[in-house]
């Protein structure tokens, strides 16, 4: 009974993925593609499992860059938002800068960063940080703006200074929002890391992908895509769990 039910729940939740795998396979078989054009899903999955040791260093590198950028960019965004909240004049500089940074496609940003910082780890890290910066900035700012008047009045009556309002009220309102931003940007951080790695071709999943492509190793290249997707989904799920934890703690 419970088993049948859990299978039923599985179907309800996972039918699009099953459909996707089956139509992928059918598409390859029906078109008669050879493995240099498009591999069948089962071979790709097999390559990931048998050659997993080859993937591990790249996975760790990309994961490290994405997480490092996520933490760094979020912190910078948080600090920027607090500064803007603090001073109207500063908001004059930071707001247009943030608007521009929001609009720059990472594809345009990464080549410039790569040229300025030079090929290598700092360029990858700088790219992921810039991607995570803006959402953290905006979400923190809207959290700080959501401090209710009553709470602020209470602190004024108590004679609190701005720093106390920030540390006792602002953080409380900004932190849940900041976690939303982490959840939203987590997959983008993985994407940014991979794009930077792909372009510079030094290390990481993006570089592995680029190499596999140039050697026409389709199973490896599609396998990298698959692994990257799983990594990205896991980072997203992790961020989601963290967000729920913070939320249940603060509300």
């Amino acid at each position: 009974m419970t088993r049948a039910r859990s299978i039923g729940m599985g179907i309800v939740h996972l039918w699009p993925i099953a459909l996707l795998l089956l139509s992928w396979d059918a598409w390859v078989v029906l078109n008669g593609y050879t493995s240099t054009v498009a591999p069948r899903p089962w071979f790709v999955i097999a390559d990931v499992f048998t050659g997993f040791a080859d993937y591990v260093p790249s996975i760790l590198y990309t994961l490290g860059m994405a997480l490092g950028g996520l933490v760094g960019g979020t912190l910078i965004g948080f600090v920027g938002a607090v500064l803007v909240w603090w001073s109207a004049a500063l908001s004059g500089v930071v707001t247009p800068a943030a608007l521009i940074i929001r609009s720059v496609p990472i594809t345009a940003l990464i080549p410039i960063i790569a040229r300025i910082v030079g090929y290598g780890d700092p360029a990858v890290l700088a790219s992921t940080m810039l991607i995570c910066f803006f959402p953290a900035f905006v979400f923190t700012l809207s959290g700080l703006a959501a401090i209710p008047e009553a709470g602020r009045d209470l602190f004024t009556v108590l004679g609190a200074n701005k720093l106390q309002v920030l540390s006792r009220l602002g953080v409380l309102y900004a932190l849940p929002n900041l976690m939303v931003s982490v959840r939203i940007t987590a997959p983008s951080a993985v994407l940014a890391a991979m794009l930077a790695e792909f372009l510079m071709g030094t290390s990481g999943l993006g570089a592995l992908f680029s190499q596999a492509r140039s050697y026409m190793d389709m199973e490896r290249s599609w396998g990298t895509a698959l692994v990257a997707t799983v990594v990205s989904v896991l980072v997203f799920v992790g961020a989601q769990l963290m967000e729920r934890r913070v939320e249940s703690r603060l509300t």
Partner: protein
Amino acid sequence: MNTPTRTSVKVAYSLAGGALLILAAQLIGQFGLAGRAWPPVMDVVSYVTTPAGASLLWRNTLVTFSSAAQGFLLGAVIAVLGAALALVVPIIRPGMDRFAAILHAVPTIALAPLLITTVGREDAPAVIAALSVGFVMFVTMASGFANTSSAHQDLFTVIGANRTRRLARLELPRAVPAFFDGLTLSAPAAILGATIGEWFGAPMGLGLVIVSAMQNYQMALLWAAAMAATIMSLLAYLVFIQLQRVAMRRFT
């Protein structure tokens, strides 16, 4: 009395800030503080004003714009239809939510080989743009459809509305602000998606120009192309945020 002065002060601060930023960028370039890769802003501007530079940028911007716009339309239409379908047929909803979340987490670069084999190099930018847009739109529309108030739902039940009329007269108009929210969020995603697609061997487009300028160390061209992509994205954002404000006023 108070608000207009405050907004005008804010605008003044922002304009001054913007000017300050441009000046800073110019100075960093002029004194070579960030190396050869950061040219003075005036160099980039003078490159853009040369006939060759202008025409190169303009042609490639148009290509990227048209891919992004096609993808934007395609993604938005499919996402809205999908969200409406999930609303009318609730049993498929959990699966579609899960799928949309996974689709969102897929690094778009990973889709490139698949798309180049399926749709070809020319159309890959538009399709990647459509996928990026589609996820954002699906999620915002699904939550827009979900947040109809229970009082309104009760009202439509007691006046005996059938499924189509409930959709047409309550759920669709109610989701209009969410629709424009989604468009605002996904406009930059469309341009990003299009340029990622162009990295994989499209014959033209800003993404291609950016990569080749980087590899050939043409810094003025690299910056000019990056600025063109940014301005396009910024304009799209500003247009949609205005539309979204109008929709908010009209539909709430």
